[in-house]
């Protein structure tokens, strides 16, 4: 199977400061791969390994192709001039065009991100393929993809015909990040760059941002000072809530 592993490269959420007036300011922070993307790659590599297939890395916009190259992917494509869009369907449209132009892709593995839970499913919609979301691991059996996910207290295995999109969710941080040697070697490997024009795209974002505000959250009632006093105050508050025995 030919598996496209989609990954992103963006500022991490902790680089944003929300001011009291609700405006958001981004500090200059290093870019990070999507939280799920190491699991995306693991799933893609497992499927390729099971089927004597191959993995092609795919990223858009700021994506740093060496991220995938340092993790054993030899072929990677970047849509370098793709803008950052609010509409996840518009992002999916760019990814779909890129997948189509790769040709012969049987499976797309893409992060099922908490912040962007619409990208994987909209991508499947744009491609007209089936999708299994919330996947944590996958294998090839009988020419089909067996995708595993947890639904409540049940581990469910869904068998999907190809072509199919898998929305992959990481269960933990990346176990072992590549070292300096791999990173330096990766920077020397070739990257195929395409443009929106090559893909025949001229993306518009139909969604405008009108503003941001701070949610009215009630911060925790904090008890500090002497542990004995704080503990008594907490117990009183919890009794008052009716949550103690």
């Amino acid at each position, binding site marked *: 199977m030919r598996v496209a592993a989609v990954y992103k490269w963006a500022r991490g*959420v902790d680089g*944003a400061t929300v001011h009291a007036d609700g405006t958001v300011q981004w500090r200059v922070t290093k870019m990070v791969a999507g939280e799920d993307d190491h699991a995306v790659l693991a799933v893609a590599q497992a499927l390729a390994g099971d089927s004597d297939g191959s993995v092609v890395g795919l990223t858009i916009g700021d994506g740093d192709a060496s991220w995938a190259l340092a993790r054993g992917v030899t072929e990677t494509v970047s849509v370098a001039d793709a803008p950052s869009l*609010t*509409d*996840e*369907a*518009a992002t*999916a449209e760019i990814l779909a065009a890129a997948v189509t132009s790769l040709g012969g892709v049987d499976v797309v593995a893409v992060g*099922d991100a*908490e*912040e*962007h*839970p*619409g990208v*994987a*499913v*909209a991508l499947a*919609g744009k491609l*007209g393929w*089936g*999708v*299994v*979301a919330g996947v944590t691991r996958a294998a090839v059996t009988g020419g089909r993809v067996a995708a595993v996910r*947890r639904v*409540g*207290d049940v*581990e*469910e*295995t*869904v*068998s999907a*015909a190809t072509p199919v999109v898998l929305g992959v969710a990481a*269960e*933990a941080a990346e176990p072992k990040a590549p070292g300096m040697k791999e990173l330096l070697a990766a920077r020397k490997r070739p990257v195929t760059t395409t443009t929106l024009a090559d893909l025949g795209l001229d993306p518009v974002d*139909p*969604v*405008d941002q009108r*503003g*941001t*505000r*701070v*949610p009215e*959250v009630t911060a*925790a*009632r*904090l*008890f*500090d000072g002497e*542990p*004995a006093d*704080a*503990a008594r105050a*907490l*117990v009183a*508050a*919890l009794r008052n*809530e009716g*949550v*103690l*025995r």
Partner: protein
Amino acid sequence: MTAPTWVLATDTALLTTCVELARGAGGPVTVVAAGPRELADAAAAAGPDRVLWAEPEADRPAESLAPTIAAAAADAGVRVLVSTVAPAARALLGAAATAVSASVVAGAVALSVDGDALVVERSALDGAVLETLATAGALALVARGDEVAAPDGAPAPVEPLAAGPVADLRVVSRTPVGGASGVRDAERVVSIGRGVRAKADLELIGTLTSALDAEIACSMPIADDLGWVPKERYIGRSGQHIAPRLYLAVGIAGMPQHMEGVRDAKVVAAINNDPAAPIFRTADYGVVGDLYEVVPALVEALRE
């Protein structure tokens, strides 16, 4: 006439919340229930104008119906689609959004109409900010929010959705995991994180769980990396999702991946020696202090 709004449901979670969000579009609201008859009945009671019911074939997941539902949404001229974040419901949303050329926005908490525009408020940056977005086009929303009670009144009529094309997906196995741990249904849970320094300190924590008649749980590293507590007791995105009346976090930072597991807890309290710990932003009550002093004090206070 205002364009119709469809809520796409594959389970009962947040059904009424989604219908209320959908009401913001001002048009008639239909719940498309992809699942067993009980789901259609629950949908009918959640306050929509009608329910369209489609039952997947045996051994097929709900998302196998995505092509049928997408085609029907296009036929009906749907302008607004709503689903929860549940993977199956989102799969339906992605297909239908494409069929009606809708933009996709996640984290939606409120919807309204302003002239020709649909205006959505959504939670972003791990809940740190609410963002107002507007579009003149069609909109597919992944909803976020808390469970609300179903409205009073007669249930909406349930009509079958005509059969159509299906995606080639099959459920090949369903295995129960980690259900037996006791932490799932506990009324009170004491949960420990890396603020606890040694496995031997579980004895101290044990005095607190006894005093509270609580079950023990933990953050992921305590179970996964350290193995101090069985794996089926860690809480969070990748672990258990629980809804106790009291969740007392001891030495837990409160990272978003952890807090996802206790979104439905009634009261969250935390003990942490760092006043800036993220957990104090989501907890209801907190004690700022060293857990090695606060836990014994708490046990004492509970005896009083």
